[in-house]
């Protein structure tokens, strides 16, 4: 209760609260790729503290992968993801960013059937693989219980990432079908972060947590596996998930893409592809595997499958492919 009251009284912190400790550098994939402080949350905060405008630091703002590792370790509890998104919004408003995606004000999507209890907001990669999508649905409760073709809010996620304003009507159209459902399972970590805020009473889980909670999936995990946690989803609910995955590690014995601070190292993230410093050579995936003796790689996000297949020479499977679902 005291904590809640204190939070209610304490105004949200922003860039002006950055003390420059640099802890965010240690976990930043863009920092690892560029070794350029200016491309990090700390660099942005300090530049803003000294009078820079969003346009002055546009390459830094655009390079962020939004993996949220920085926000997780920030001792000042600055919402660094929100800070970066605000800056992207400022850039979008100043038209400094070309080729913004267009937002529709309304969208027609399939409504959940009366028997549906779970909404699966699958990303593009999963939707394009009908077999994988069916397996995921089966593991989450079966085709009847899981609504797989709802409006997945992909344009909203893209708008969030790009700094576009989301029309209220569009947002409500996306959220309304989700409210009556018992559980929402989300592929996109950025969307997951915002859904927690938009639907505080709903039970919302990442796809990785939802699948790895399945007994048959857990049984199929081996101590020789490298389990690749989806960084965005993990950091969106870090305090709870760090304990969840710690339990999974104790139970299964597999390795994780976690650093010494228990922060997830992303192998690929959408934002990393936006700048010349992009991690297109698989350096992040190689760093995850460096010095680890693993026989198989298990990914939560299908977006990370290709890069591990390219750099590892090991079998790479999606979490949903582990379980025997009797089909």
């Amino acid at each position: 209760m005291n904590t809640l009251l204190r939070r209610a009284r304490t105004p949200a912190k922003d860039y002006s609260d950055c003390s420059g400790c640099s802890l965010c550098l240690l976990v930043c994939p863009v920092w690892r790729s560029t070794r350029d402080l200016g491309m990090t949350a700390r660099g942005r905060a300090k530049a803003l503290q000294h009078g820079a405008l969003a346009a002055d630091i546009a390459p830094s703002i655009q390079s962020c992968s939004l993996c949220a590792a920085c926000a997780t370790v920030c001792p000042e509890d600055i919402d660094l993801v929100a800070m970066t998104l605000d800056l992207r919004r400022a850039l979008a408003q100043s038209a400094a960013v070309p080729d913004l995606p267009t937002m529709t004000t309304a969208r027609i999507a399939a409504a959940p059937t009366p028997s549906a209890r779970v909404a699966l907001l699958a990303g593009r990669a999963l939707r394009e693989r009908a077999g994988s999508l069916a397996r995921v649905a089966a593991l989450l409760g079966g085709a009847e219980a899981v609504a797989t073709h709802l409006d997945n809010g992909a344009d909203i996620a893209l708008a969030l990432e790009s700094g576009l304003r989301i029309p209220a009507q569009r947002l409500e159209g996306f959220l309304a079908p989700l409210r009556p459902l018992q559980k929402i399972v989300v592929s996109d970590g950025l969307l997951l972060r915002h859904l927690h805020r938009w639907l505080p009473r709903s039970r919302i889980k990442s796809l990785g947590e939802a699948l790895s909670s399945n007994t048959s999936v857990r049984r199929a995990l081996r101590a020789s596996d490298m389990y690749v946690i989806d960084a965005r989803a993990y950091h969106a609910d870090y305090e709870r998930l760090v304990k969840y995955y710690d339990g999974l590690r104790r139970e299964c014995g597999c390795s994780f893409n976690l650093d010494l601070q228990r922060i997830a190292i992303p192998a690929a993230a959408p934002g990393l592809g936006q700048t010349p410093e992009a991690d297109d050579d698989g350096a992040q995936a190689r760093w995850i595997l460096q010095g680890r003796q693993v026989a198989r790689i298990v990914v939560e996000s299908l977006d990370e499958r290709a890069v591990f297949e390219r750099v590892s020479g090991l079998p790479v499977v999606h979490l949903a492919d582990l379980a025997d679902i009797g089909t």
Partner: protein
Amino acid sequence: MRGTALNIAAVEPGTVGPCPVAPDALVGIARQQTNPSRWNGASWPEFARALSASGIEVRETTAARGAFATDAGGTAYGLAHGVVIARSAGEIARLLQSAQRYRVPVTVRGGGLTTEGESVAFGGVLLDMTGMSRVLSIDAKALTVRTEAGIFWHSLAEELRRQDLDYLSAPLNLTSSVGGTLGVGGIDVNSARLGCSADQALALQVVTPTGDIVECSDTQHAELFQRVILGYGQFGVITEATLRIRRYTPLRMHYFYYASLRTAIEDLQFLDRNDASDYSGILTIMDRAVNLLVAFDSIEREAQFMATWRPRLRGHGEFGFGARMLGHYALRPWQLGEALYLLRRKRELFPQLRRSEYMQGATMLDRSVVFSRAVWKFWSSRQMVIPDLATAAEKFAEAVERGNAVCHQYFPHYTLYLVGIKLRAEHSAHYEMSCIPPGAEGRAYGCEFEPIMDAGVYSRDYLQSFKNAIYDIGADMGASYYRFGGMMKGYIRRVFGDALVDRHLAWKRRADPAMILNRHVIF
């Protein structure tokens, strides 16, 4: 005007008055903090053009320069004319050669964890060494690592741990850089056994102030090695380092609580003298809750401690100490505010030291992660001052008690961090004019006095006055300091004496004819 308000003696008209910055003028005077004057930038355009022509990128935007406008202390502010991100020793050599030619000051920055403005550029070039932060090679058999010097200790640990290795000793701060630490010393909770962090350096690649790239060690260019280690960045830029490393072991940590600083210090020194633990140190909440921490690399060492040394310690366990504190404050209800503060601090801090994801059973997986995260979360603020005293073992308790009295006088809440530092006779040349106190033999001790600002706002002059009051104790007792550079360099001659300082100054002038490298840090 009443001259006595400033505590400066009245001067007869027509005579030369006492010098306000003379060595004997400091004690007892409430001094104002002074930043170094900014370099006027006379030759900057030509210099910047020369750098660009030699392929070195100089960033001159406000955004780029503003990112380095202050250090962890947050009390010294300055803007460089331009920022260069270090990319190779060759680039740094060309940069320094041009800087000598155009007489442009160069300020080198690693993690930027200085508190006295030592890594803040007051004009000239800010050289950001974190651009050179890759591990070059690990020799698991010889137990050595070669790394670029801009690397954070924590990043080094991340790489070493993939091979089940670890560094020997480093500051309990994730964002200290290797190069910066080797330049000033570096203290860990195992320093009482292993010495300061700089003692683990076997060899360095250094770019001299005139732009020569030199490999140095105890056997190769030994004099340069001696000057650069603990040299406060005066004699070269460390670009690569070969360090001793070791096999990784998680820690078995124990905490003992004291209500008396002196008793805890005596017990700490008792343990250190007897090599009773692998790690030792004291961390306090004011002088009310004094926590002696000891830790072990193995079950055997822990068992030996428990059997032999634990019964001789006078500290209590958490429960026993809590009961004593309850009794103490029950008899002193007027100190309720302090009691509540201690309780809140305990409730917030202790769980952070035992987070399950950083523990494996009874062992702590990584001391730097646990303590550094806690330090930044519970001790840091936009302004930090951490004056310190380093003394010989026999003078230490008195120095800490006197410093503690100063803390009481200036701040309602503060913390003290105390550790031993094993001294290596073969490194005595490194220790000259450094944080290692001149008279210490065998083992020295250091104490950091850190006010906890909470929501308090203090003027820079107030903070400076506090630091002076602590440092005056050192000057009086013949101690040394970890942070004697930057804004505190007024104490250097008082502590080390003119002869030693002049000898180093002569070396500096020979090595750095234009006096461009880190010029506001020491000389």
